[in-house]
């Protein structure tokens, strides 16, 4: 059935803010995220901007803040999802500025830009008049500073009759328990983490169309402390994703999506931290992922495949995060 022709109106940029202390949740002023003219709109993209509220300019990774999204009483996320799992990484060079000898390190003034995470929706999401996609944010406590969150909805107003069906986004995620490259004195070695049947699942009674899998590693504490760190990036120790973590994946029908243990960064391509796809996940089906931490030889100066001579990098605590980013069509 053809959708009614609608007039696409003016662009809308709708920001809202909140500041979160570690291990707290907060909503935003949802009125700020509605079409100010009172009409309907289509959501095209969401940008999350994170700033360290305690020490401005400090690098903040997108794994530290998770968000829950609701459209009325319809969930668009499964619980809380780290904000950097929604979209493709755009500029991974930037987060490293000031921390590693990368090119363009002289552009240090750009370093606060690394806290920007953009989610471009595959299909515009129709939001009726007087409603919005309601976010609630969660500080996951991986860093000890408070974080200021800015969320911006990029929309366009629409006129005309509401559509007969709406494409709702849906994102679900899984986070491993804490791991460490510490070689054996504090945390468990060679851990295996497996999603359960509800983590990366289609909780609806209709098929989900998966557009991407995304995978990030939040290195939240360096130098041997298994508590909160100062930053939480997925770029400072890239080799965690190449030399320490491997994964396999299969779905609830038993189909082996990743049949042999594969480096984390080969699955979640280094350039984007995602695996772009376009596949259907049937109603009530799910994806299972097994993540293996290969810590190497305890005390042997080796982490995974890597010989560690520089002891300063032998203490990185981290978690691995995976999400399915999907959508589904709903007749309204």
């Amino acid at each position, binding site marked *: 059935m053809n959708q009614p022709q609608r007039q696409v109106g003016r662009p809308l940029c709708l920001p809202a803010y909140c500041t979160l202390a570690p291990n707290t949740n907060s909503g935003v002023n949802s009125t700020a995220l509605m079409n100010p003219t009172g009409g309907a709109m289509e959501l095209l993209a969401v940008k999350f901007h994170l700033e360290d509220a305690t020490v401005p300019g400090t690098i903040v990774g997108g794994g530290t803040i998770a968000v829950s999204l609701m459209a009325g009483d319809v969930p668009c996320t499964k619980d809380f999802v780290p904000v950097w799992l929604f979209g493709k990484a755009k500029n991974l060079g930037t987060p490293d500025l000031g921390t590693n000898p990368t*090119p363009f390190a*002289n552009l240090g003034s750009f370093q606060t830009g690394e806290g920007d995470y953009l989610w471009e929706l595959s299909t515009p999401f129709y939001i009726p008049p007087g409603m919005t996609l309601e976010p609630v944010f969660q500080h996951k406590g991986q860093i000890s500073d408070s974080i200021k969150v800015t969320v911006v909805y990029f929309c366009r107003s629409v006129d005309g009759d509401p559509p007969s069906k709406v494409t709702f986004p849906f994102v679900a995620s899984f986070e491993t328990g804490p791991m460490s490259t510490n070689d054996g004195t504090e945390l468990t070695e060679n851990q295996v983490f497996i999603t359960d049947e509800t983590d990366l699942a289609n909780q609806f009674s209709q098929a989900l169309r998966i557009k991407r899998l995304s995978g990030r590693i939040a290195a939240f504490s360096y130098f041997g402390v298994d508590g909160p760190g100062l930053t939480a990036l997925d770029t400072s120790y890239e080799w965690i994703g190449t*030399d320490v973590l491997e994964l396999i994946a299969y779905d609830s029908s038993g189909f082996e999506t990743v*049949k042999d243990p594969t480096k984390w960064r080969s699955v979640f391509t280094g350039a984007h931290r995602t695996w772009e*796809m376009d*596949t259907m996940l049937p109603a009530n089906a799910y994806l299972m992922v097994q993540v293996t931490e290969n810590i190497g030889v305890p005390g042997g100066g080796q982490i995974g*495949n*890597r010989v560690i001579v520089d002891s300063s990098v032998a203490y990185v605590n981290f978690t691995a995060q995976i999400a399915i980013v999907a959508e589904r069509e709903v007749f309204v």
Partner: protein
Amino acid sequence: MSRPTGHPICMSANTEALIANHQGLNGAGQVGQLDAGRLRNEYRSPILVTEIDFTISLHQSFASLASVDGTPRPFSNIGGYILAQIAIGGYKMTNRFVPIWMLGRRYGLGSEMNDSDVNFYRWVLPKPMLVLPNTSFEVDIQVSKAFATIFGTSVSLGDGVSVEFAAKGYTVDPDDIDMSSTAVPYASAFVSDGSPTSNLMGPELALHNPFQIPLRVQRLVGRIELYDQTSFAAPVALPAGLFPDVPQDGTMETEAGVILMVDLQDSTGYRLTANPHPFGFLFYPDATWRFERDLQPGDSYFAVLTNPVNADGTTFPIGTNYRPQIGLVGHRVETLQVAA
């Protein structure tokens, strides 16, 4: 909206057991063969492969690797020295060994070298390639012999380098596709031995269609491998963050990309560049020049590279410190033999 695909698939294998324990330069020139069993389509249905990802990591933290001046240096971008030879089901996908960074487009320096000793390269195939059940990729990885030639003992690979090859795609219903033929990608590259001090012409067989059928060229790829730049002196300074004595990509970020001129024509006499053109501009910004053109059987592209002299007759002081590389990426359509 387009139709969704079948099941997503990722098949991978790596060289960990094959190129390991490279102390010093022992590994240069060594070939590692990937486990074809892991790269076989063991699914009951055919699959369409859409991209191939390479992940290269040093087994030893760069911080522990010594360099010319004794200061630890990162391997900023080593894709010019790690080569891949790829075939599938007997069909060549590369012209012998091709530097891995010549297969895909550049995604920005940051994306290729985030941790300085981990590099990522992504080859999005010109067209999805049909892989029938029980067909396998055959992949060999080689550390370029040039690594030893160029660096001597001044730069090492530490405790080894591992390369992972990952082919991604999705299953397809045999009833939905033509199983009699498929696009097979092909990549070939010309790598100069060193900086051209006068006109340098790429060999005829480097950017060549070796098949009996047309080769649809999708793009040309250009990179400049920088190395041993200890002779760099003002005013030819490297941008901050680029180091003078390690492998890296200088296609656009250094003067080499501006000064080196490239002139391209094909074997029919058609000039792709009206005049010699700055290398870095031609391949700006992602080391690629996209176009679609059939290269007929036996035809070639010729690249003439020129390092011009200054007005006073001296060569520009980029001296002998870089190796330009030019490659082509395309595909041809091959007939498949479907088992009865």
